[in-house]
C-alpha cells in the first residue's frame, strides 16, 4: 500500500495530510488544495519535533476526512478491501505512531479494521493549530499506535495549552498514566451492539471477557442516544465543514479552473472541478441546514441536543466508568461507488459521532471502542492495556 501523499524523511512518526508540516505539500486529500505548501507546522508536529521525533511523511486521507477510511483521496483512490493509510503504516511497523484528525470517525474506523489503537482525546487537549479545519467544534488530533503505551508516549508530548488555538484548554499538561482497572464498571451499549455484524459482536464479547478477567464488572445496558447524537453531529459537522472549506475558492491558492469569464465562474468552475462528489454532498447538506428557514429546526436544535446529550452522558457515567461499543458495523469494508458515500458514512458514524459531539475521549483498541467522561484517557488506556497484556 502507498502510505504517503508526501514523503518527508526517514522518521518514526507519520502525519495525516490534514495536519500541516512546514513546506510539505498539504492537500487534505483534495484536488482543490493541489500544490499548497504551508508556511508553518501544526503545534502537535512542532512539539514532537522538539522532543526529537522525526516526521516520515504525510499519509493519504480521504478528501477532508469525510469518507469511511480514506478511500476517496485525490490521486490515491482505493479498490478492493479498504484500509486507512496512517493506520496501516502503524500496523505494518513503517512508523511507531501516527497523528490523524478525528472529525467524523474515519480514523477510529481505520484503526478498527487495521487492528491498531487510536485515541481521540478530550476536545481541547491537543492544539488544532495547523489542522486543515472542517468541523471546528468537534474535530481533534488523535494518535495511532500499536498499543496503549505507544499512545501514552505521544500524548505526553502533544497535549497541553496552546495560545494559538482559542479552543485549547488552559491545562499546561495532562496525566496519561494508566488507572488501575480492578473494580471498575464498564457498560456495553445494547443499541450499538445490535447495529454490528456477528464478527464485531464477537470482538465485543472477547474484550468484555478479558476485562472481567482483570476484575472489571461488565454489563449490557440500554442507552439510546447514539442515533440522535449522530443526526445532530452530521448537521453541525456538515454546516461547519461547508463554511470552513468555502475559503477554497481558486482565488488565493490551490486549484483554479482554466476556463472562466468572471469571478462567479472562477468560483463555480474551480470548486466544481476541485471537490469530489462526497464533499459536494456535504456542502449541499451543510448549506441547507444553515439556511434562514431551516436554521432553527436544524442547526440550533442540534446545539441543544449537544447540551442535553452531554448531560445524559454525565448521568450515565456516574454509574459506569466507561462504555464499550463497536467502532464500526463490520470488520472490513469493500470499495464502493462515491455516490453511495454520504449515506454509508452517515450510517457508520452512529458509532463515533457522540464523542465528537460532546467532546469526550474515545479509544479504539482490539477492534472495539471505549468511551469515558472528559479527561478519562488514563482509565481508557488502562482498560486497553489490561486487555492487551492478556493477549500477549
Amino acid at each position, binding site marked *: 500500500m502507498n502510505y504517503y501523499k508526501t514523503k518527508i524523511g526517514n522518521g518514526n512518526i507519520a502525519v495525516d495530510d490534514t495536519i*500541516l508540516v512546514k513546506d510539505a505539500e*498539504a492537500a*487534505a486529500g483534495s484536488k482543490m*488544495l493541489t500544490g*499548497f505548501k*504551508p*508556511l*508553518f507546522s*501544526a503545534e502537535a508536529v512542532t512539539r514532537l519535533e522538539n522532543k526529537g521525533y522525526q516526521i516520515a511523511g504525510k499519509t493519504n486521507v480521504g478528501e477532508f476526512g469525510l469518507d469511511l477510511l480514506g478511500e476517496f483521496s485525490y490521486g490515491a483512490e482505493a479498490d478492493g478491501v479498504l484500509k486507512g493509510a496512517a493506520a496501516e503504516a502503524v500496523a505494518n511497523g513503517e512508523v511507531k505512531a501516527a497523528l490523524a484528525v478525528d472529525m467524523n470517525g474515519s480514523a477510529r474506523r481505520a484503526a478498527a479494521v487495521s487492528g491498531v489503537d487510536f485515541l481521540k482525546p478530550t476536545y481541547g487537549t491537543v492544539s*488544532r*493549530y*495547523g*489542522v*486543515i*479545519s472542517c*468541523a*471546528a*467544534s468537534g474535530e481533534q488530533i488523535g494518535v495511532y499506535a500499536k498499543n496503549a503505551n505507544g499512545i501514552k508516549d505521544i500524548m505526553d508530548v502533544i497535549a497541553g495549552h496552546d*495560545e*494559538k*488555538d*482559542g*479552543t485549547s484548554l488552559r491545562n499546561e499538561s495532562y496525566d496519561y498514566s494508566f488507572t488501575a482497572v480492578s473494580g471498575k464498571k464498564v457498560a456495553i451499549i445494547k443499541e450499538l451492539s445490535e447495529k454490528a455484524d456477528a464478527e464485531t459482536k464477537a470482538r465485543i464479547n472477547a474484550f468484555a471477557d478479558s476485562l472481567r478477567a482483570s476484575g472489571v464488572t461488565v454489563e449490557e445496558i440500554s442507552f439510546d442516544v447514539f442515533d440522535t447524537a449522530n443526526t445532530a453531529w452530521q448537521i453541525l459537522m456538515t*454546516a*461547519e465543514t461547508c*463554511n470552513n472549506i*468555502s*475559503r477554497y*475558492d481558486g*482565488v*488565493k*491558492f490551490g486549484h483554479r479552473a482554466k476556463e472562466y469569464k468572471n*469571478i462567479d465562474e472562477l*468560483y463555480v468552475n474551480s470548486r466544481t472541478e476541485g471537490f469530489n462528489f462526497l464533499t459536494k454532498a456535504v456542502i449541499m447538506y451543510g*448549506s441547507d441546514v*444553515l*439556511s*434562514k428557514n431551516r*436554521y432553527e429546526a436544524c*442547526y440550533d436544535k442540534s*446545539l441543544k441536543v449537544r447540551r442535553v446529550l452531554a448531560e445524559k452522558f454525565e448521568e450515565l457515567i456516574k454509574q459506569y466508568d466507561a462504555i464499550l461499543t463497536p467502532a464500526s458495523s463490520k470488520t472490513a469494508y469493500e470499495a464502493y461507488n462515491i455516490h453511495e458515500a454520504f449515506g454509508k458514512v452517515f450510517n457508520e458514524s452512529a458509532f463515533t459521532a457522540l464523542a465528537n459531539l460532546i467532546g469526550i475521549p474515545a479509544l479504539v483498541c482490539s477492534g472495539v471502542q471505549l468511551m469515558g467522561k472528559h479527561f478519562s484517557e488514563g482509565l481508557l488506556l488502562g482498560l486497553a492495556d489490561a486487555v492487551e497484556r492478556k493477549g500477549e
Partner: protein
Amino acid sequence: MNYELVIGLETHVELSTESKIFCSCGGHSAAKEPNDCVCPACSGMPGMLPVMNKHVVELAVTAGLMLNCDINRYTTFDKKNYYYPDLPCAYQITQLNHPICTNGCVTLKTSAGTRDIRIKQIHMEEDAGKLVHGGKYSYVDFNRTSVPLIEIVTQPDFRSAEEVVTYLNKLKSMFRSGGISECEEGAMRCDVNISVRPEGSEEFGVRTEIKNMSSFEAIEKAIRYEAQRHIDALEFETEELVQETRRFDDASGKTFAMRNKETEADYRYFPDANLMPIIIDDEWLEEIKANKPAAVDEKAENYRLAGISDKEIDMLISNHKISKLLDDIVAMGVNAKDGASWILTDCAGILRKDGKTLNDLVITAEKLYAVIKMVDNGDINRNAGKKILIAVVEQDVDPVAFCKEQGLDKKFDVSAIEAVIDKAIAENPQSVADYKSGKVKAIQALFGACMKELKGAGDPAVIKTLLEEKLK
C-alpha cells in the same frame, strides 16, 4: 400632506488598536505597500485559528459606556457567509446573537431642540480587504482584512438629515477623545435606513437602505435625495417603493437600486466554534471603567470652567492626543487655560511654519511642563520660553539643559541687564541727549539696542524700568 422622515443608522467605526482583531498583524494604517500587513491568519490560510485581541473588547466596552449601553457579560461571535475576493475565508466574523453592548442612548442638541436617539446594539467584527481594479486584472489587498470594527446600530429615531449629521459628529468627537478611533477619512462608514410616513402616523413606511457612505456631506445629500424620492412616490405615485438596498452616487447626487429583498443573499449566520464565548467579569469591567476617559460633555464642561474658549475646547475634544497632553500637564500643576494656550497657540504656531499640524506634535508632557514651569517661576521670560519650546518641538532637546546652554536664564539677572544698558547708553549718545532734552520717544532706540543685545530674552518691563532709572 406633510411627511415625517424616519431614519435608523448603522455606523462602522475602525478601532485604534495596534494589531488586528484576531492576529498580531499591525493595523492597515501601518501598511506602506499593498499586502504589507498580512499573515496566514488574516489571509485565510488553512490551519490558522483566530485568537481574540483583548484590546478590541475593551474599546468596544468603552464605546458602550460612552453611549450609555448595557454591557453584556457574555458575548459571542458568529460567522457570516458570502463569497467575495476581498474576503479571504469567504466568511466574516461578526456578532449576531450576543453582541457586546445593547440598549444605549445618546442625547443630541439640534435646532429642533434636545432629542434622544436609542442605540439598539454595538457589536464587534472584522473588516474585509480591498479590491484594486487595473487594466485586465483586479488585485486584492488584504491589509485591511481583519482590522477591528465596531458597528453601532440605532433604533429608527432620527427625524431629519441634520440630526443624523449631529449624531455622527458627536460620535466622532467622542471616539477621538476616548482614544477609540481616529475616525479618519474612510474609518467611519454608514448604512442609512430610511422611510417616510404621513405626519402623525404610527406605522412605518417602506424602508430602503443606502449602503456604505463615509463622508458626512454625502450622507446628508443622500438622505435629502432619498426622502424626496419616497415623498414623490407617495404623493405623486411616480414609482412604487420596494424594500431594497441602494447606493448613493456622489457625482449625480442620486441613489440607485442595488438589490431587492428577493435577491438578497442568505448569509447563513452561525456561531463561530473557533472563538470561545467572552465573559466580562466585574473586575475586568471595573478596570475598563477606571481607564475610560471622561465623557465628552463632562470634559468640555471642565475646560469651560477653567476659562478655555469654545473654539479651543472644540480643538481639544476632537483630538485625544492633545487633550491628554493638556490633562497631563494640568495634573502636574499647570493652569489649564495657560496650558491650552501653550499647546494650541505656541506649539501649533511652531508646527504651522513647517506646514504641519497638531497631529504631528511630538512632545512629552514632562518636557512641556519643564518649559512652562521655568516661565511660571520667573526663571526666564515668555519669549525665552518660546525659544526653548521651538527647540524642544523641532529637535526634541532637553529644555533645562538647552536654556543653560544658550544662556537664556542669565539674561534675567539684573546685573547682567545693567551691563547691557550701560553699553547701550555708551554707544548711543545722541539718543541719550534727545531723551534728556525731552524727546521721551528716544528711549525706544535705547530699549531696542538692549533687546538686540539680549537676543530678545530679557523681561521688557524690567529693562524699561532700569533704563529709565539710569537716564534720570
